[in-house]
């Protein structure tokens, strides 16, 4: 390993961006090949999807939240709203993500640890208690597999309160191919089934929930898995194209559902590269929608996205430094024209965020929005020789990768052939090698690594007692509800699934009869000739 000196006479030696593109010492107008003269709000929207950007409306400020029981999560929501959060962002535990109830004997250790446990309609009602669902925009971070059930719980909660679902705002992840490289085995989250229910959700929401974004393409997790900036664009666009093709096949037109597609992107630590990436994504998306899919509605061509700052860029060494990393990443997102921002909490490489760390992540956004003035002017880096050059570069590199994916048969085929996973693994290893070789520098990790031990931070732990409460609650629900209603709605759902109908209305009926997540997903699995319980322990109530 190369030994380097840091201190007196130190200089910048890294002449590549974090994604590996060489950078000259300075840039001039001659470096910009694309003469994109569009203004903010004009096709291809490189400079922003609205002419007045944040003067028209600030980005939505969210903090990812979800742990323990729905009630604990609700208390955190209320705290965050009181502190000025403007949108919800809820994340679920792994049993919920895999459609398994909290009282399943094999998942007890994992109830509530990585998100909130949510198994039934009463859970959703409790989690959303006191939250005005017709006003607040909710981002439901859930696997595509469990998306139809979470959406149904959300719809049923609103309807029970007398809220017209046409007024529901927000988004659900509902991104079926995402499972294939984010840790969920095919057995737990079958691709074909998820593609079907994902299309059901889009179809249903397009017709019944016009303010809701029924699909949020998760570019973020691709990046977190180790891909670089251009790959993040190319792979997420290729996924989006697979879903668009499925919707077109169902008979929807591009301008019916196109305006409601949103993306969930990363903002990593290389500020200018990230700004360029977001600008390139807007330009590429607009052209893709117009030229390939024949969109006419400008809303279809506008690339709408949320950003989550890069969790993988944070480190446990001297964790308070992560506050600074997150602030730079959030800055990149805002300079890139983001619509909704989620800042990581600085203690995430150690444990779940505490109340205090969650508040700091929210304050990071508020300082950006109200103190720094960075949102005053749309696309403030537009016209920078360097950023314009990088925007062109990212577009060019992403297009090369996108062509390669298409040549290999599109996203579904390249996932099946293992090519996508190979690319992810290769990139992730490359990244780590560069860290090992000190080509990528991380303060406190491979430079300026302190020998002193830092005082451990307070850690947010999930209470065992609350975990048991949640398990007991679902067991009680099973006893209290009307068995006939449960069986009737589940049977109707199974029939609908066998006849390939849109399942969402049937799942909403099941939700209202207090069927649980595990039961609903189990019955759908059965209808598609899979075993009821992916873990192979529970028996179907219909048998």
């Amino acid at each position, binding site marked *: 390993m190369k030994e380097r000196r840091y201190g007196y006479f130190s200089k910048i030696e890294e002449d590549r961006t974090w994604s590996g593109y060489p950078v000259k010492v300075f840039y001039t107008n001659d470096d910009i090949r694309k003469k994109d003269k569009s203004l903010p709000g004009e096709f291809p929207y490189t400079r922003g999807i609205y002419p007045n950007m944040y003067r028209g409306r600030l980005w939505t400020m969210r903090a990812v939240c979800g742990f323990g029981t729905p009630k604990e999560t609700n208390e955190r929501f209320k705290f965050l709203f009181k502190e000025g959060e403007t949108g919800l962002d809820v994340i679920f535990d792994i049993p919920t993500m895999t459609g398994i109830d909290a009282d399943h004997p094999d998942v007890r250790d994992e109830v509530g640890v990585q998100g909130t446990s949510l198994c039934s309609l009463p859970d959703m009602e409790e989690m959303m208690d006191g939250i005005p669902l017709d006003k607040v925009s909710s981002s439901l971070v859930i696997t595509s597999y469990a998306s139809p059930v979470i959406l149904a719980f959300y719809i049923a909660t609103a309807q029970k309160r007398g809220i017209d679902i046409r007024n529901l705002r927000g988004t659900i992840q509902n991104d079926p191919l995402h499972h294939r490289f984010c840790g969920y085995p095919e057995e737990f989250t079958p691709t074909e089934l998820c593609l079907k229910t994902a299309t059901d959700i889009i179809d249903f929401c397009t017709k019944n929930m016009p303010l809701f974004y029924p699909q949020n393409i998760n570019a973020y997790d691709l990046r977190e898995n180790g891909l670089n900036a251009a790959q993040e664009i190319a792979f997420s666009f290729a996924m989006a194209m697979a879903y668009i093709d499925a919707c077109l096949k169902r008979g929807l037109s591009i301008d019916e559902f196109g305006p409601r597609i949103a993306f969930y992107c990363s903002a990593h630590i290389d500020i200018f590269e990230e700004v360029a990436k977001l600008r390139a994504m807007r330009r590429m998306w607009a052209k893709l929608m117009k030229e390939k899919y024949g969109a006419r509605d400008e809303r279809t061509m506008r690339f709408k996205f949320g950003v989550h700052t890069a969790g993988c860029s944070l480190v446990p060494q001297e964790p308070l430094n992560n506050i600074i990393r997150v602030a730079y990443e959030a800055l990149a997102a805002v300079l890139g024209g983001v619509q909704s921002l989620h800042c990581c909490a600085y203690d995430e490489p150690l444990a779940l965020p505490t109340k205090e760390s969650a508040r700091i992540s929210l304050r990071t956004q508020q300082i950006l929005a109200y103190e720094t003035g960075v949102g005053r002017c749309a696309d403030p880096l537009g016209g920078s020789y360097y950023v314009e050059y990088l925007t062109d570069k990212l577009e060019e590199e992403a297009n090369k990768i996108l062509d390669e994916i298409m040549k290999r048969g599109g996203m579904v085929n390249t996932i099946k052939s293992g090519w996508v996973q190979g690319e992810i693994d290769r990139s992730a*290893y490359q990244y780590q090698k560069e860290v090992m070789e000190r080509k990528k520098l991380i303060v406190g990790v491979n430079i300026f690594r302190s020998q002193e031990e830092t005082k*451990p931070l307070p850690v947010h732990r999930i209470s065992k007692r609350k975990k048991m409460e949640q398990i007991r609650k679902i067991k009680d629900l099973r006893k209290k509800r009307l068995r006939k209603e449960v069986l009737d709605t589940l049977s109707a759902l199974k029939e609908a699934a066998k006849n390939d109908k849109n399942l969402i209305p049937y799942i909403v009926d099941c939700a209202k009869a207090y069927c649980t997540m595990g039961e609903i997903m189990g019955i759908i699995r059965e209808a598609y000739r899979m075993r009821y319980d992916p873990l192979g322990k529970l028996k179907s109530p219909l048998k």
Partner: protein
Amino acid sequence: MKRIKILLAKTSLDGHDRGIKVLSLALRDAGFEVIYLGKMLKPEEVVKTAIDEDVDVIGLSFLSGEHIEHTRKVLRLIKKEVQKDVLFLVGGVIPPQDIKKLKRMGVDEVFPAGSLIEEIIRFISENVKIK
């Protein structure tokens, strides 16, 4: 000399496997024989493979906060069923407060997120109980 054989795995439902996969590749390139068994495994499956493959090192990776319970289960099985003196490592998102606890339970070393792979390689080379 016999090559050091390492078994890496994830036992919870959690799917965050970037770290353990990258580690597998790096250890392989450093000259170790590495088996990455995968994720969502039962403790029994991990320990059975460790015995069948006669490994020298077992490493588990966690992210979602269930490291204490899962480590306890795997350790219990190792003590009961593995004859050989294997090196047992744990890594991932683990709060510093838990590192001592894990070591007291019988984990040989803990490598939290942000550890350098060269440190892991050094630790294995110096501490493996291979004959």
